């Protein structure tokens, strides 16, 4: 493995060894404390523009598996991990993580002090730009400083064209802001007849399909940079059909209903925080990946109420509309990776659609 360096915009350098693609990469560096599911994390489009530090010490232990992708074309900018295993678990045709990252043109760096990097990111108090480079010279730093990361991530990762995922149950439209396959997997388990639409689909385009319900998918980046027409779409659709927002979809749902969304000082990626369901007082765990959060003080109590909260940082983790059958969660109830304890939210969504159907 060739020597590679992780450099930060503040001038610090960490030495390591390269794996995956040898390309130079730029991105916001975040850390993820999950201990499972490296393949799902790497293929989650939420990491568009980001370089992910795995705090779990070793990844690659089972290579790449054919049935656990969270997207087919991963958009993650880079992978940082302390130790890499070189395993392809199968005698059929499976890839090692290294081979896969090469194919997907994703650079990685290993044999590097990820705990020190995590401490640095935790203490920085703001997102830090970084780059994985072969030589940490002035040129590399100049390039890093000159790099402007796009804020149009959703437009980049959303599907340009509608496509179906047929089923025999309820008809659901999924609006793709950077869709995670887990959402489709959960809907497909519940036999839904899904149509995935681009992020900029209008309310009319959605309602024309006469869906039983609409899911606003998770996705990358700052919700404020998503076209404002999306908020209008949400306001119209929620009046007509049941709506379920996840991740970025939750943030957009909040914005559409007058709440404010603010960036977190340190992005939170993990699955071990206790999340309280307020109405039942139950504590659950779920996959959380968030750079932004709904400002609780701005939630208009005549329209929305808070359903879930993170007990560690007291952040809003779920919202529900008072008038319409519309709700949203900041965390990922589809897991992949992560606990299943909140996957009942998909059942709740199905029930909501059924009740609406019955009332018709």
């Amino acid at each position, binding site marked *: 493995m060739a020597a590679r360096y992780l450099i930060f915009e503040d001038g610090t350098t*960490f030495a390591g060894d390269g794996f995956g693609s040898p390309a130079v990469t730029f991105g916001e560096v975040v*850390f993820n*404390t*999950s*201990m*499972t*599911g490296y393949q*799902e994390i790497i293929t989650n489009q939420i990491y568009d523009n980001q370089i992910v530090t795995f*705090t*779990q*010490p*070793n990844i690659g*232990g*089972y290579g790449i*598996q054919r049935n*656990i992708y969270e997207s087919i074309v991963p958009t993650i900018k880079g992978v940082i991990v*302390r*130790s890499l*295993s*070189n*395993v*392809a*678990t199968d*005698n059929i045709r499976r890839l090692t993580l290294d081979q896969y990252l090469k194919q997907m043109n994703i650079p990685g760096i290993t*044999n590097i*002090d*990820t*705990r*020190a990097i*995590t*401490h640095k990111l*935790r203490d920085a108090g703001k997102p830090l730009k970084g780059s994985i480079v072969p030589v940490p010279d002035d040129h590399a730093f100049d390039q890093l400083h000159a790099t402007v990361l796009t804020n149009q991530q959703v437009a980049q990762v959303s599907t340009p064209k509608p496509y179906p995922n047929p089923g025999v149950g309820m008809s659901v439209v999924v609006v793709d802001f950077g869709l995670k396959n887990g959402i489709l997997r959960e809907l497909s388990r519940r036999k839904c007849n899904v149509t995935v639409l681009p992020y900029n689909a209008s309310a009319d385009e959605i309602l024309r399909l006469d869906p039983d319900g609409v899911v606003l998918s998770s996705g990358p980046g700052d919700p404020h940079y998503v076209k404002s027409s999306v908020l209008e779409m949400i306001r119209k659709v929620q009046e007509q059909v049941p709506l379920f927002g996840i991740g970025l979809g939750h943030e957009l749902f909040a914005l559409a209903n007058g709440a404010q969304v603010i960036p977190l000082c340190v992005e939170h990626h*993990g*699955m*071990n*925080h*206790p999340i309280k369901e307020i109405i039942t*007082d*139950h*504590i659950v*765990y779920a996959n959380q990946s968030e750079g932004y959060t709904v400002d609780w003080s701005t939630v208009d109590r005549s329209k929305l109420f808070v359903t879930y909260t993170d*007990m*560690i940082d007291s952040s809003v983790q779920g919202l529900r509309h008072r008038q319409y059958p519309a709700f949203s969660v900041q965390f990922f109830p589809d*897991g*992949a*990776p*992560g*606990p*299943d304890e909140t996957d009942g939210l998909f059942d709740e969504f199905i029930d909501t659609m059924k009740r609406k159907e019955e009332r018709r």
Partner: protein
Amino acid sequence: MEKQQSILIIGAGPNNIQHGDEVDSATYQVATYLHRAGVTTILADNNPFSYSLNDSSVIDYSSIGPLTVDHLIALIDQYHPQAILPTLGNRQAFLLTQELMEKGILREKEIKLLGIPEATVRQVNNPILLERTLRRMDAPMKKISTVNNYPDALEEANKLGYPVIIRSVLPKITSTRQIVHDQSELATAVSKCLSQSRAGQVYVQQSLAGYKEIEVVVQRDKSGTMMMLGMVEDMDPIGIHAGDSIAFNPAQTLLDRQIQDMRDVAFAITRKLRIVGINHIQFALDPVSDHFYVIKSSPYFDRMVSFVAQSTGYPIAMVSAQLYLGKTLREIDLGPGFAKHAALVEPVMDHIAARVPVWGFSPEQSQKQLLGTEKKSIGTVFGIGRNPAEALFKAIESRYHEPTDFHLKTQAKLSEDELIDRLVHPHAGRLFSLLEAMRRGYTAYELVEMTKIDPFYFDQLSKMKELIGELIEHPGKEPVLVKAKHNGLSNQLIAKLWETTPKQVYQMMQDHNLTVKYKEVEPSAGEFDQHTQTFYSAYEDENEALTLPQPSALFIGTGGLRLGLSNAGDFFVASMMMQLHRQNYHTIIMNCNPSSVTLNTLIADKRYIEPASAENVLSVVEIDQPQLIFIPASYTNLLETLKKYDLQSKVITLPDDRLGNLKPKSNQLLALDYLWDGNTAKFLTSTAALQSAINLDYEMVNLRLPAEISNAELTQLQNKAQNVIEQQVNPGFYQVVFEQQGMEYKALTIQSVSLPEVAFLSKSLGINLPALLGQVVSDETFNLASVEIPQPRGTAIYRASFPFESLHMKTEETPSPDKVIGAEIQFMD
């Protein structure tokens, strides 16, 4: 919080092959918390090596007596506890609890059970009941059916797929259990088991052999909140006892899907059994079909719970104690050093912990020990690293006091057939055979086929093999040294491979500015600014271990359990640490036994999970600059090496835990035991050897205290003994051994009192002797002469036990002190 005035804790009893020291540390932590909450604590146990049993500051009533239901009833009548805690005494405590239930004692005296409902106690004690419950709740269980003839058996076997296990239903004499690998073996097995069955039926049961073994520890509070604390994966497949397998935390070869499914089932079982506290659930996972099966649920403290606690830094015992008192997880504060609600944050790791078994016998003998479904190891050690190989290297080097060379030369001598035999029939030294096989060019897939070990581990082993190869090829070269240190190799091992001295390697590291860093074992993987003061070494950028305030004292733990010492070493070291702690020293421990009570946060202010090698001791001395360093005498190599360095700290050798080699002519032996501080010889008590019932060859394995001699004789012997003791140079526990010849007592020898015996003496006299020694060696103002040694609490008997039967060793093995696995203490009425 509900008020509990007094709680009876049922202890675990003598160590044996199934359990060692793992509950002592948990007991001490739980009892401390209960005591602080104003609860009166009563501990029933008869393990002379228990630390908890000797600490009257947290155990209000230490009751030394047989772990029988009658004795427990007597205790209940004496102390009137409001509750019983059955989770700190292994399976035996559950069986005793059930007896108490069935006798109606609990109901009659209105005694509550903590942590476990009565119905669950019954289920844990009765696998058939538990299996029924689990099947009813649709937990995945191995497939099993009952047939009464061969054709039906054949049909079932074909459905299940070979191998299958055939067992008699209601067996007549001994239970017959046959593994059937293919159809040709089926008829014989079925007819044999049918003939053995009183019901004329046999079970045809799915075999789990070759599947992955996964162990999960979960926790639940009374409000129903559940958390997963750890998922540990065994390297060896099912077929080898989990306690004998190398294990990794966190799991390395499992898909998220598999992990979440097992988590869900573990939660469901724990909810169904209404457990408050911890539950350890074992699963078998078929890597081909992805199906998994529940093997066992153990809702009590065991070796897995201590391994998970030590490897994550999550204080399981302290949290459990609060759950037992009725707190919910959200009400629990882990104290300074932890984030708010940290008790509710599922632990995550940014390091890997590898646990390896410790065998009872010499490395050469152990190599030959075949492994199977019965446990053969007597203890465990663990290593922590930033990659799997590093953790494993450290764990292996933690196993013995002396440097290992990985048995490279012996392995190289094996013929091809011998090697294959060792791969296919796993034995205690299997890891080294696997390395040798890789060196000889076997591919990972061939080895996967032969061993059913996941390919991941061969990736790690191949890295280890390559590293060892590189070292041998490039002696004295810096790049390979850097790589070796990054992967956890000790200077001792590098020196061995380079045919030089560890000091030379150390010098080379200094020359190249290769300095060790210490990372904290912290359960949020760096997300929160939390501190546990538990560290492991890593050759990376950031160092987290800061110098402790003075005065401080570093203790080297006795490591994994050994025959002869059992956990008397842990008792000894922990007692001294606690004494130094009371004298306002900051205590530091270096140890590698996840179950050791010395790694307890209440006893050690700072913990280093490291093999006790000279380089590790030197680096810790550099960081913490302790005034005192305590090292057990058995670390001869370490003690010798440290003499070569100019240390600012005073090194104190802990009494030798190895024994003298007495060959007396008769069995009429008695000993006078003393504590000697250099000036005063303090008489402690007298002990007499008891005739061993097991073997007529006399060995000092069973003791009686005090010896039966008249006061006049005692005074006479004391005069003789005193003179001999006063010639000793170093402070310590000494005994003068006399042999009775006719009417005369003849002084045979003077020797150090063995650590197990010191533990026995402490319990019998009701005083913590190692703590006293701690004060002798560290407190100059202390006057031993003024100490009052209590009279024995009565006549005490010490009976040692041996692992020969469990290990299927030849019966002609002599039960000698160096083969003791555990012991019990009893007071005669």
